[in-house]
């Protein structure tokens, strides 16, 4: 296992470097100018801006920014929000998105697994039917609808004083957006858990466990869940990476200053330094979470030990 972790960790910089170059190429190939404006800009002004931001040519850009990143750890200034460096923006918005995402993932995982397990155990019963309906709603209702409904709820007289409407000021303001964000993964996790739980419940060792006198809840929560949770774990890795780095829709509706909005806006603005910054952060998250999932797999199910561990 430690060998696996070291080996995978060594891959990370290489993969990130490849992603950096590909993203850079895509950002430069796309038509449109980061410095363009509603008005036409004097070529002399444009030349000055390009010089200042080391963007006279793709080559110059690629020579300056990766070097800067490696030596100082800075992504450079944002080309759109000129008062802020990309690091400023990420440092400011990533914690917001992570808090929100973590909250959403905890709700989604705990409720999803709980409801999924119950539905499997009470197969065909009311809980099963209800969880199926909720899951269907969770998957098919787009988050902008849920988010908008919750936002309007927060502006009603009853809740007006509780949440800051359309603003993020204190942790409590994350509850409604967190709920909106958790609905889809929760539904997904519930369905995943139910299916694999049904599978496990009908296996021989469950009957044996029951036969030797263990209580039903003991069998379900201790023995079955451990096996049934594997598909959920492999879903959780990428899902956590997505959720923790922010959601464009939910952040937009609730006006939350998270990282999610920059995925879309930086591209629309051709803010090349910011595009690279957010893509690198997101990629790092995906890599790390995937690694974490692989490690967890081994812990949950000792039969699965990836990568030649002995």
């Amino acid at each position, binding site marked *: 296992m430690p060998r696996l972790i070291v080996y995978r960790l060594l891959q990370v910089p290489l993969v990130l470097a490849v992603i950096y170059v590909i993203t850079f190429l895509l950002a430069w190939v796309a038509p449109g100018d980061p410095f363009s404006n509603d008005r036409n800009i004097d070529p002399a002004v444009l030349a000055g801006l390009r010089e200042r931001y080391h963007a006279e040519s793709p080559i110059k850009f690629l020579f300056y920014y990766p070097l800067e990143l490696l030596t100082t750890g800075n992504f450079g*200034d944002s080309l759109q929000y000129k008062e802020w460096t990309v690091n400023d923006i990420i440092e400011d918005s990533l914690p917001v998105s992570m808090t929100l995402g973590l909250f959403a993932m905890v709700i989604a995982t705990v409720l999803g697994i709980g409801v999924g397990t119950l539905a499997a155990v009470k197969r065909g019963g009311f809980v099963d039917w209800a969880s199926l309906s909720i899951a269907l709603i969770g998957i098919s209702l787009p988050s902008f609808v849920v988010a908008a409904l919750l936002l309007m709820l927060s502006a009603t007289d009853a809740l007006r004083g509780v949440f*800051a*409407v359309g603003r993020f000021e204190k942790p409590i303001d994350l509850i409604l957006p967190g709920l909106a964000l958790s609905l889809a993964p929760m539904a997904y996790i519930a369905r995943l858990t139910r299916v694999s739980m049904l599978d496990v419940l009908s296996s021989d060792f469950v009957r044996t466990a029951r036969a030797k006198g263990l209580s039903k809840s003991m069998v379900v929560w201790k023995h079955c869940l451990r096996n049934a949770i594997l598909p959920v774990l492999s879903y959780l890795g990428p899902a956590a990476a997505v959720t923790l780095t922010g959601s464009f829709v939910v952040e937009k509706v609730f006006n939350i200053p998270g990282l999610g*909005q920059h995925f879309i806006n930086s591209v629309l603005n051709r803010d090349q330094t910011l595009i690279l910054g957010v893509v690198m952060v997101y990629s790092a998250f995906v890599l790390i979470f995937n690694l974490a999932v692989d490690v967890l797999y081994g812990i949950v199910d000792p039969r699965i030990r990836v990568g030649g561990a002995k």
Partner: protein
Amino acid sequence: MTRLLTGLLFLLTLVAPAALAQDGRREAHARRHHLRFINRGDIFTLDLNQMSYMQDFRLTYAIREGLYSPTGPEWTPVPAGAFGVDVSQDKCVYTFHLRPEAKWSNGDPVTAKDYIFSWFRLLEDPGEYSYLFNCIKGARAYQQAFEKTHTSDRKTVGIEEVDALTLRVTLHQPLTYFLDLVAFPPFYPRNEASMRGFIIWDDPVKQSRVVGYRNQYTRPPDAVTNGPFNLVDWKFKRVLKLEKNPLYWDAKNVKLDAIDNIINDNVLSQYLQFEAKAADWISEVPADIAPELRARGVKELQSCTAFGTFFLTLYCKPNLPNSVMGGAKNPMADVRVRQALALSIDKSFVTERITRMGEAVATTYIPPGTLPGYTSLPGLPMDVKRAQQLLADAGFPGGQGFPKLPFLYNSENTTRAKVAQALQQQWKQNLGIDIEIEAIEGKIFRQRVSTKQYAIATVAWYGDYPDVSTFTDKYRANSLQNDSAWEVPEFDALLDAAAKEADPPTRFRILANAEGMINTQFPIIPIFHYVNAGLISDRVSGIKINPRNMIRWKEVDVTE
């Protein structure tokens, strides 16, 4: 066990908000002399060199001050950083007398040197508005020389310090609106000492030449300003907090204690914030929601004609650009075709069915009534018969043989998509011609229009300073902003004549003739004049909607 766990979690999500409710209630309570407003959008920059968006200017008026300040709906410049000016007989030399009591927020006095420093920044590190300095003697030549050699003789420029509190500016020729320019943020002073830590050197080791200043100099706590308010906190994408500047020379007449510039670009949550009294003013109500509020008769909604026009720009060169239909012959090079396209449009359909804010249908380029003393010559009204005749005269009877021209619009703007579809329909119906509408993403759209790779496109223009030339100069043959490639020597000659004319009424008459050429030869087809719509709570005084949405921050107050 199971039930307990789920029950507990469920309870937790319900109870947690209520437990913290007390804190929230206190916060929702509106405060006296504290304005919370939602500005037009994100603040892009507060650097005077690079600034170009309305929201950035609006905030700058609160934290900085120039020699003069614009006031009232007519934008009249009144003495501010200067207490007066002497103008020479030939109206070319302006001697400004600075207010000795004017101070920077760090306590330094504001001197002529601060103005000179700031103005030369715009010549040496040019920005979008550097061209406004071209009226000053030697400024243009200095800027060009500096661009090449990075050194130049400042003595050749008509900007000089007579003494610490006297600034003399020499112009090429009289300019009736020079004081209006001086009241515009690119002409505001800057405190050099506070910016030294932000210099970008050509070479970090040798430090021989200043390339520019990092924009971070505008952020608190490093920002040093001279306006009625100080910027004390700037939370990216959240809020900019301003507090009354106790060192401001006219602090006794500043009514507000604090201003929050809330950043919120979501239409629904903006409105909900206003409804929940968490915002006192929305400076520009988005077009997605304004007509709805107007129809519902929301009493806080104020609107008036804006200093801007929505129009189509038509490419006028004899051949289309290479990227459009392979550079084929351009039918719109013929003025009759442009007139036919213009006269066959039912503009009231656009304003009554699409924009629905009571916009005035535009037959002129400049919004009527927005410039005191100026009257546009009447434009041409809708006339389908005449349009059909003109098109036939140009060789396309009944639209026959007319090429399928592309019609570009910016897909980020939902209104423009609807306008494009309506006009496509109208041209088909009234002239029998087919136009192909093409939605293009914002940045690419701008690139296509500014490099003139289009045939027809939807655009807009807002005036910068209160003078006709802010509109007419756009269509000079050599203007950077002349997207239509419309080059008419008579038009340029009229503008030159107006520039030399010192008598305002005569000058306006000449400019009206120039504008008349645009209104009848149609390098552009004006569709409607924009309407400014703002939501202003009745707790707020001193904010009244006006064409440029200009407010005088000193006069604003909030009561409760």
